[in-house]
């Protein structure tokens, strides 16, 4: 099946969604996604950030779709033509969605531990307005303690439900979910039960905002001050492949390895994430790189410094040798010829 997104064509398998096709092309056509997570089944369709304009339905039915569609849950059809970033309608819609998401989101980025790797920050940087039209009071919740490892800030939640899907799909017994309806909807553990499943820490990685953060890392540092390294260890519960965030010789936190769409490659267990904070526990592979625009790159000098070699020396020696032959002085050996050749 052939689909065209912003004038770029690609062949895709039947059953691919528009968002997946756009990610195959990569670059600017990829719609932003707050709730869709490729590693979680059934995610997507909630945040409406990834709206695109289908200008040609398919080869069989070339009529355009009347409304903007959510690209993460709409399948591709043969000959489909899609306008993503190129369409002013889409730009306008994304701007509005960002404004809606920010209505109840507190602007406490200076305090929030997610700042610097927050999807909502990136989204509002690209699509947001610099002022707010919202004059009413924001929705607030009573702070709730959900265990010693995970910090829940319900005020920051955008109800993407990624963490609910993690609890559904990675853990055997789901103990948290969305409570209440409408404006009162909130993520909570039923009867404030601590989430003690071994894979529950992945909720921190999948959370696009700072609603679920690492309690062991709380206020320790900002993400751009610590140095991220790829590291691994032998773990019987998970793959053991992680990113460790170090400051000097101290491991401040451990996360999964996130790709360019901020999705983890593989989920990791709580033992790796919260308990292994010694350098000796890990085998460090090397510094982890991030996309060029990320603030995590600031003040890091990981550039390879090339070794300076003076190559002229060899050429000079060759030239000298040639000269010596030309002026037919072969009989007279060069002074310390052995040394100068080195």
């Amino acid at each position, binding site marked *: 099946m052939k689909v065209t997104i912003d004038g770029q064509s690609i062949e895709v398998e039947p059953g691919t969604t528009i968002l997946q096709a756009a990610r195959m092309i990569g670059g600017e056509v990829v719609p932003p996604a707050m709730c869709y997570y490729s590693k979680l089944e059934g995610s997507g369709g909630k945040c409406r950030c990834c709206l695109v304009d289908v200008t040609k339905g398919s080869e069989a039915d070339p009529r355009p779709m009347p409304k903007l569609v959510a690209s993460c849950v709409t399948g591709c059809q043969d000959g489909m033509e899609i306008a993503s970033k190129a369409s002013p309608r889409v730009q306008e819609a994304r701007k509005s969605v960002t404004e809606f998401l920010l209505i109840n989101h507190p602007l406490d980025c200076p305090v929030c531990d997610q700042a610097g790797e927050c999807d909502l920050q990136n989204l509002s940087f690209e699509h947001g307005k610099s002022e707010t039209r919202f004059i009413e009071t924001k929705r607030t919740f009573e702070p709730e303690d959900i265990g010693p490892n995970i910090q829940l800030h319900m005020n920051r939640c955008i109800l993407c439900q990624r963490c609910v899907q993690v609890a559904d799909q990675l853990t055997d017994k789901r103990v948290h979910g969305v409570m209440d309806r409408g404006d009162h909807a909130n993520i909570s553990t039923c009867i404030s039960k601590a989430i003690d499943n071994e894979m529950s820490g992945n909720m921190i990685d999948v959370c696009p905002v700072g609603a679920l953060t690492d309690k062991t890392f709380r206020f320790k540092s900002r993400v751009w001050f610590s140095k991220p390294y790829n590291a691994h260890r032998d773990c019987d519960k998970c793959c053991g492949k992680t990113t460790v965030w170090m400051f000097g010789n101290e491991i401040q936190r451990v996360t999964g390895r996130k790709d360019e769409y901020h999705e983890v490659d593989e989920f990791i267990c709580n033992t790796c994430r919260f308990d292994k904070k010694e350098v000796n526990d890990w085998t460090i592979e090397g510094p982890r790189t991030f996309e060029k625009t990320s603030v995590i790159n600031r*003040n890091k000098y990981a550039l390879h410094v090339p070794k300076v070699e003076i190559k002229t020396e060899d050429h000079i020696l060759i030239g000298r040798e040639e000269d010596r032959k030309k002026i037919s002085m072969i009989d007279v050996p060069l002074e310390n010829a052995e040394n100068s050749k080195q």
Partner: protein
Amino acid sequence: MSLDTISLSGRKKEVSNKKMSFLESLYIVAIAKGLVITIKHLFRRKVTIKYPEQKREFSPVYRGQHMLKRDELGRENCTACGMCAVACPAEAITMTAAERKKGEENLYREEKYASVYEINMLRCIFCGLCEEACPKDAIYLTESKVIVKSASNREDFIYGKDKLVMPLEMAIKNSKSIN
């Protein structure tokens, strides 16, 4: 007119090697002329001041020692977000954050605050980028009206919160002027 004779600055003087007359070779006239210039300067306004006793007035935009401001209730504005440190081109600023405890609400404005905040004044180039980066209006270079003092020890140039935070008396005065 040839290029040799025109003077673009109007100060061009012909230099010649002609022999001096007897009067000129005594140099009395030249010395007297020079003395007149020297004496004239004695009666002019002085360009220097006696620094520690006398102090020059600061320009309103003069950037001196940093000050971590308090708000009108006397609470520290700084929330240790790290924007100043990441904006600093000289990498002079370091900080450690801490969580505000119960009962400290009148000391710190946000739930997070800087427990350690240090500026290396030898590194600082007083460019004011930290001031521009600050989202909380916490750091200012124009408020203290103090120049960083000289010292003989390198460690003395690392200014901690004891030297940087706005003094309480100043905060009290500010809150009174508002009310």
